[in-house]
């Protein structure tokens, strides 16, 4: 298939793996930020082609995984209301809240619908004028422009029965929290390529400089991952700490100006609670005052989320790169995709799900 096969070519992959082996003289711990990258590494077995010196630390870049249980509880409460049609990306359906999940709410009679685009939810609101249509706006900078567009469109068209429950998160503050942590295990980052497609690369320069860590913008195919690692290892070996773009075919330094403008028009940075990490200043997006009337959290009187998590789940440590999924005692026995204790076992981008799906041997 054009645009995919050339980036999965076995000969090219082996050549890059060999180049990486030759470039590595010391041990390095490199975090791939995005859960999509974690899955690609494990699915294609690229992590098994790495030289001994290069260790991957799986990052927090799974939007489903870092959404706090309190927010999920609010989503569940909203979805159960008879006047509400609750629209969500498919990934969120099975994420456990304190007591239940969206699929259970749907089975009990809640009107929960999977959409592929936030604009589909706006269309639904037009078709169902007697209902309140709520879109669950989760995701990093990649999905925020779509949500912003939906709100903007609803405002322009005067669609008053549409609102969004916002749980958007931003990558740079999370990188800063990980790089700046006293016990940080990370020497360098592979930045999430698709986030940079939207936001560009400039936000990473002060981070690379301040924490003396290379940050390499990286794609998602086997040769992309290896090129990102190679660039990162070369910087580390040479003592450089720069922002480098190894995903040139998709990412420009300025990102996507039209998408950024739309996000900035509708949203502003707010403090956000991250599951497993805690509250980080200016790490999430909230609706600007002009769009407050589309904020589901303001429109509906929502009970404060219970926010109960399973005590055995080590999702927080997995998300910070402190432990690997297999280090968790519950992994693969008490916690499986059929009975997930935490979000990383549910999401198609969660590290625990990736290990369970591709690495389990028993």
């Amino acid at each position, binding site marked *: *298939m054009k645009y*995919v096969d050339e980036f*999965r070519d*076995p000969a090219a*992959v*082996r050549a890059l793996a060999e180049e990486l082996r030759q470039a590595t003289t010391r041990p390095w711990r490199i975090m791939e930020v995005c859960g*999509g990258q974690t899955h690609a590494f*494990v*699915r*294609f*077995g*690229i992590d*098994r*082609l790495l030289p001994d010196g290069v260790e991957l630390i799986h990052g927090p870049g799974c*939007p*489903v995984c870092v959404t706090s249980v309190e927010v999920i509880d609010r989503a569940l409460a909203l979805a159960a209301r008879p006047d509400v049609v609750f629209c969500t*990306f*498919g*990934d*969120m*359906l*099975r994420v456990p809240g304190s007591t239940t999940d969206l699929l259970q709410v749907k089975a009990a009679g809640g009107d929960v619908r*999977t959409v*592929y685009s936030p604009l589909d939810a706006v269309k639904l609101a037009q078709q169902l004028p007697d209902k309140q249509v709520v879109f669950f706006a*989760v*995701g*990093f900078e*990649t*999905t925020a422009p779509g949500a912003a567009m939906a709100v903007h469109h609803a405002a322009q*068209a005067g669609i008053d029965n549409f609102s969004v429950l916002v749980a958007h998160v931003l990558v740079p503050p999370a990188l800063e929290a990980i790089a700046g942590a006293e016990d940080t295990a990370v020497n360098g980052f592979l930045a999430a390529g*698709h986030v940079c497609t939207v936001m560009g690369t400039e936000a990473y320069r002060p981070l690379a400089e301040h924490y003396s860590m290379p940050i390499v913008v990286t794609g998602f195919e*086997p040769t992309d991952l290896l090129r990102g690692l190679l660039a990162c290892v070369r910087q580390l070996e040479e003592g450089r700490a720069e922002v480098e773009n190894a995903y040139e075919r998709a990412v420009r330094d300025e990102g996507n100006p039209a998408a950024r403008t739309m996000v900035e028009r509708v949203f502003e940075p707010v403090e956000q609670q991250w599951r497993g990490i805690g509250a980080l200043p200016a790490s999430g997006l909230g609706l600007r005052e002009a769009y407050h009337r589309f904020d589901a959290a303001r429109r509906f009187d929502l009970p404060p989320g219970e926010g109960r998590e399973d005590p055995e789940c080590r999702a927080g440590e997995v998300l910070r790169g402190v432990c690997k999924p297999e280090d968790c005692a519950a992994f693969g026995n008490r916690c499986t*995709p*059929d009975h997930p204790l935490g979000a990383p076992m549910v*999401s*198609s*981008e969660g590290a625990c799900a990736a290990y369970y*799906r*591709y*690495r*389990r*041997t028993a």
Partner: protein
Amino acid sequence: MSFDPSCPVPAPDGPLVTLAHGGGGRAMHRLLAEHIGPSVGDGALRHDGAVVDVVRDGGRLAVTTDSFVVTPLFFPGGDIGKLAVYGTVNDLVATGAEPRVLTLGLILEEGLPLATLDRVLASIRSAADEAGVRVATGDTKVVERGKGDGVFINTTGLGEVPSSVEIGAWKVREGDAVLVSGDVGRHGMAVLSVRESLGFATPIESDCGSLLPNWRALQAANVVPSCMRDCTRGGLAASVVEIGGAADVDIVLDEGSIPVDPGVRAACEILGLDAVHLACEGRMVVFARAEDADTALAALKSVEPSAARIGTVTEGTGRVWLRDAYGGERLLDLPLGEALPRIC
């Protein structure tokens, strides 16, 4: 703001199915005499029971039942009627049977246009004719509007397994070759694309079809498979995982050799789905002794050129491994439920 070109006043659908059509009275008899009977043969209405001559000369009776609830009723490459016939025919074929008769259970939703029912019935008829099966008896019920999805269909199939044929997971041995009768995942993606209005530039057509020609080709080539399994829900992965578990062997599939239509592959990349987990409705996985593998492949290819040899049975405990292009192996498992498209 997008412009919706459809007419706001829907065109009349013509006569509709009403609750009276299921009431056992004159309306029901008219439905049977004017719609169902002419389409699928009067076997379906003469009596609730039928006496059929299925098994001769020491053969064994094969029986299967399946219910069909697909939305939408019509999709690129097929419809619920065709699906209801071939789904059951293929289940019989996978046991090594010659399909003989079907029963046809229809659950109709009040308000279904009779013209739609006629289209479904015509499709049932043409599929049954092609597969050489007869509708021997049937049943029709009507449920209130909102309590069905237009049409639900149940078919039960009876067939004869000749005494010379013995096919099943218990016959699978270490060293067997694994083949698939054609490219996988098309039905699942075809239905998903219309259900979610994905609007691909090149429409993806379902593989919905009979596996009888494939089975006949194997027989003509004197190949006796150890096991055959039609791939339906859960796709190729579910069929292979089930057989591996039942036979208590490991199965190693070569990921690169699994045939996937380029359009399906591209759609999978976009949606974050894996073609091996997507439903097929006209494909089967065939296990054959290694020495028969080339002959079996040639026979399967004579019916469907995309057929391929995709793996080997090894000693083990019921696990299925996918070997990737870089020499690594990963476990192939069943997904929990329906595949959920990812966020980004």
